[in-house]
């Protein structure tokens, strides 16, 4: 096929059957519906074409017409049924449908009628295009993509003139310092992005993000309270095999001060109690209290909160990515993608007999970060 569509070519397409034959296309004389040959008609491609039943038999074409008309009529009916369903059916009514179960009656009717209404319009349109509109391949040539050679030369000349007049090639030092300035320009943006965290807490003033990530609200003597009731705990409250989600006693004050949940995210712990004989290792000597162990609740992989504790195996499993920690063995990773053990919080009791932290965590809690090494 020619790449150029010249005016004389397009004029030829208007000539009807003789023009198609020039391109090698085959036109069937038996067609029930003659093909369009008025102005704008395109030449047939040189591809064999088998006529459809609806092309050959007027009866078949009328059957398809009735079929499509029925689809459009049904679509109208669906629109009416939608409005009726919307008005007539009680919002709370329920209906049992096999497979779906008990569903909202109105919900179902609105969905089915609207869905079918749209679907039938689409299906009718597709059927129309497939069965009744012409399905012969035609040729429509596109224009040349390359620029005019004269335009190309002009553009090149303008580039050369700009290079010469601006002196970009002549002033070497100026050119290089411009490149240097553009290279350094993004640095302030990088610094701003690094400092995008908001440090609202005056107690954390002047600390770097890495320092803030490395310490939590826990300090020696701070009471452990139950997450939920915020009640303090005595060792005898926790049975062997028990699990308690804990927080520092001042968590609500910190949250009110900082207006963030960051501290809750960092200082959340779980307390578990096991037979002291079951404890094979801890992260520090006597960091437990009579078999009660406190571990961070934040997974060291990507920071999901975990309290999925099996009290017979002492495994702590993270539901996000199945990292498994052995709390009887210093919180070491025994399975999964976590790269670090679960940090342990040393605990003891105060003079009133309530469980308290003995100090902060000895290592950063939660997921790894850049400066942690």
């Amino acid at each position: 096929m020619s790449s150029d569509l010249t005016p004389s070519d397009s004029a030829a397409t208007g000539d009807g059957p003789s023009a198609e034959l020039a391109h090698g296309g085959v036109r069937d004389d038996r067609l029930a519906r003659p093909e369009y040959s008025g102005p704008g008609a395109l030449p047939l491609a040189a591809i064999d074409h088998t006529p459809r039943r609806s092309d050959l038999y007027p009866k078949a074409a009328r059957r398809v017409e009735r079929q499509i008309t029925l689809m459009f009529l049904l679509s109208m009916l669906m629109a009416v049924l939608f409005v009726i369903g919307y008005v007539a059916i009680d919002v709370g009514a329920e209906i049992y449908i096999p497979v779906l179960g008990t569903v909202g009656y109105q919900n179902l009717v609105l969905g089915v009628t609207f869905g079918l209404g749209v679907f039938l319009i689409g299906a009718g349109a597709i059927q129309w295009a497939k069965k009744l509109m012409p399905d012969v391949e035609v040729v429509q040539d596109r224009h040349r993509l390359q620029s005019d050679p004269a335009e190309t030369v002009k553009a090149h000349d303008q580039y050369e003139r700009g290079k010469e007049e601006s002196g970009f090639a002549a002033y070497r030092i100026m050119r290089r310092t411009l490149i240097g300035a553009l290279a350094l320009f993004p640095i302030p943006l990088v610094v701003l992005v690094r400092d995008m965290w908001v440090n609202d807490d005056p107690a954390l003033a002047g600390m770097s993000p890495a320092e803030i990530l490395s310490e939590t609200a826990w300090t020696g003597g701070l009471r452990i309270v139950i997450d939920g009731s915020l009640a303090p705990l005595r060792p005898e409250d926790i049975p062997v095999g028990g699990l308690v989600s804990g927080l520092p006693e001042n968590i609500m004050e910190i949250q009110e001060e900082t207006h963030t949940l960051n501290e809750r995210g960092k200082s959340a712990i779980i307390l578990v109690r096991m037979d002291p004989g079951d404890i094979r290792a801890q992260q520090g000597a006597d960091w437990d209290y009579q078999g009660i162990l406190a571990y961070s609740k934040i997974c060291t992989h990507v920071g999901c909160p975990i309290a999925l504790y099996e009290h017979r195996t002492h495994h702590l499993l993270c539901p996000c990515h199945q990292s498994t920690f052995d709390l009887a063995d210093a919180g070491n990773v025994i399975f999964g993608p976590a790269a670090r053990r679960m940090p342990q919080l040393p605990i003891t009791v105060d003079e009133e007999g309530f469980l308290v932290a003995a100090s902060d965590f000895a290592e950063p809690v939660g997921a790894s970060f850049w400066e942690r090494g």
Partner: protein
Amino acid sequence: MGLVLLLLALGVVGGVYGVATTTPSSADAALVGDQTQIEEGRRLYLEGCSSCHGLNAEGAASGPTLIGVGAASVHFQVATGRMPLAAPGAQAPVKKDIYSSEEVLAMAAYIASLAPGPAIPTAEQIDYTDADVAEGGVLFRINCAQCHQAAGQGGALTQGKYAPSLMEASPQEIYEAMLTGPQNMPIFNDKTLPTEEKQAVIAYIMELQEAPSPGGLSLGRLGPVVEGLFLWTAVFAALIGAAVWIGIRAR
């Protein structure tokens, strides 16, 4: 005057009778455990449980000791059909229980007579009608959701173990499970999770059980992963089917 006095007297007697008959619930009565009930429980224990847990419930290689596990533990394990175990495995599954409720209570009374342990919760303890469902939701997400899934559908644990779905659990079973920590579930005793909080958790689970699904096909309420899988398989298959239909040449 005489009639009024008579009515008053009748009212007082009726009231006292009502109080006297409702306070000790059936569960309480079972706890008391008269000697014949304990004997019956021991007989059933020797028959159905002792081969694993030992002749005196002292435990053996195949089963832990039952001394001190309490009546609540026995009721939970046996009434849900978890015990007796059909076959050794990672976890005791729920199955049809083979004992009548009297037999379960008898065994519970026998085990409770060996050593003190958590008692079967009373009807009053598991009454969640006044409980705060929203608070229950908070407590459920703190303490339960990590294993039983946010909508109580259950989930996988390590090495073949699993946290069961809570969709069929009764208030009593839920209370007993929190109290006794069956299998690998940690214990939530009345100190760390007081009775009112347990009732709130039960109320929340009951709310989950009754939650309607107006759209149908809740896909186990397992959340975006399952919904995405359904979309990428069933819905995309339907869309590909439609695209193929559009593309087929008409005859």
